[in-house]
């Protein structure tokens, strides 16, 4: 087991300086994700216009893997359609569970490939994606003007 493969530079960087962290007042969709194993909670705000994920922000998180994964996800799905986001999630899921992956398709997300060697940590990396799915599946909430 090689720790350096788990905590690659990209992961450490996104953990130290997470992208798209915070609130999104204009959000149309929200969801909370829980990881009972480590007690981590993730809150996701998503702004969906038509079929497109215009913007998203996350709060909470926890370990380096879950924080970096949420940060990387936020960059990867911003501006994508729901179908494109689902396709990326499918590719990430295959990478995390060891079914092979296309590094070119995944781009920076491929930094999470080392997680599959640490089964106890796979849930840390997938929490944000399940939370995004829940947010997108939920009813759009009224947007306030405040």
């Amino acid at each position: 087991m090689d720790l350096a493969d788990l905590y690659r530079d990209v992961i450490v960087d996104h953990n130290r300086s997470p992208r798209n962290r915070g609130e999104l007042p204009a959000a149309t969709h929200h969801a909370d994700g829980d990881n009972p194993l480590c007690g981590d909670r993730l809150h996701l705000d998503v702004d969906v216009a038509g079929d497109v994920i215009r913007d998203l922000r996350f709060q909470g998180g926890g370990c380096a893997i879950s924080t970096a994964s949420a940060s990387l996800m936020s960059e990867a799905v911003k501006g994508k359609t729901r179908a494109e986001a689902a396709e990326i999630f499918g590719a990430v899921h295959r990478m995390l569970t060891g079914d092979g992956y296309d590094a070119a398709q995944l781009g920076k997300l491929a930094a999470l490939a080392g997680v599959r060697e640490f089964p106890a940590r796979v849930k840390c990396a997938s929490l944000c994606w399940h939370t995004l799915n829940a947010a997108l599946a939920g009813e759009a909430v009224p947007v306030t003007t405040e």
Partner: protein
Amino acid sequence: MAAVREAALPLDLARIRGDFPVLARRINDRPLAYLDNAASSQQPAAVIDAVADYARAHHANVHRGVHTLSQEATALYEGAREKARRFVNAASRSEIVFVRGTTEAINLVAQSYGRPRLAPGDEIIVTRLEHHSNIVPWQMLCAQTGAVLRAVPIDRRGVVDFDAYLAMLGKRTRIVALAHVSNALGTVLPLADFIAAARERGIATLVDGAQAVAHMPVDVQSLGSDFYAFSAHKMYGPTGIGVLHARESLLAAMPPWQGGGDMILTVSFEGSTWNHLPHRFEAGTPNIGGAVGLGAAIDYLGRIGQARVAAHEQDLLEYATAKLSGIDGLTLVGTAPVKSSLVSFTLEGIHPHDLGTVLDSRGVAVRTGHHCAMPVMDFFGVPATTRASFGIYNTREEIDALHEALLHAIRMLR
């Protein structure tokens, strides 16, 4: 005085470590440093062999057959009960009920002692530092009876507020349920004082002794507790077996909580009559091999001497506290003046879950998470801590390995 003299002799650590086969393992190309004893301790060969010998040569059902094996199994099982009686200095074997573990013991008391007695508005008192297993059974009992659960506050060191406890003891208090030692913080309660205050008011007391019995001598008669529960797997025995000590006068008045074989004298469709104590509370074929293993663990601790064990572990606690306190950004969670041998801490900028992975890569096994004590985590405002908990076989060198692995994690992740 005998205990002091005994404690003065240091443990033969090399020999003790040789007694535990798993300690020879290497994890990720490093010697295993097993510092997760508060979750579950390892087993010496004496325990492993006793359980195996029972299965190889003496197994049969207990309390039934007239054949030789059944008599041998019964003698081993009841012999373990006598060892457990002596271990906590109970007045008689009738007061020793074998259970699956501390959790089952507490559920037994909640359902068999509490449920018939409690009325709406009655109160059950626990402390803020309890393990979930000494909270949830009482919440379930409250839902069934309309009783109310109250928690005694703790301070920033993790010390339970004795004055607040006294103020909470009232006319409606029926049960006080206390951890002897906090699993998340290591705080040792001054139990005798807590119990005496409840007894003066005629309130029943239960002690969750899961984190105590491996680390200090326990005498239920001098403590004065009504119920005292512990698990074998936290005292170098196997999983799936534990003990509920219950004062005989209370136990005799309690209805069975599970029905089945072995807990009855007679059964007919008009009704059944209950077996004598403690068998009334042991429905079904028990964990005979587990009881044998528990007996062997008690013997093992007895040979080494619990006062010597306590002295060794307190030395490890002092060493670890000093060593870890020197790490930049490390905050100890749980700094009570009287502690059992564990250190719970947070490390600035590094999540416990990441720390657990990095430490494991260096062969160091610790617990990370909420330790089944979420109210304690809430109190300290942290989602989780990292906990290193020491046992009879741990060494200063293993604490050095922990220290070195923590510095490695800081270099890597902070």
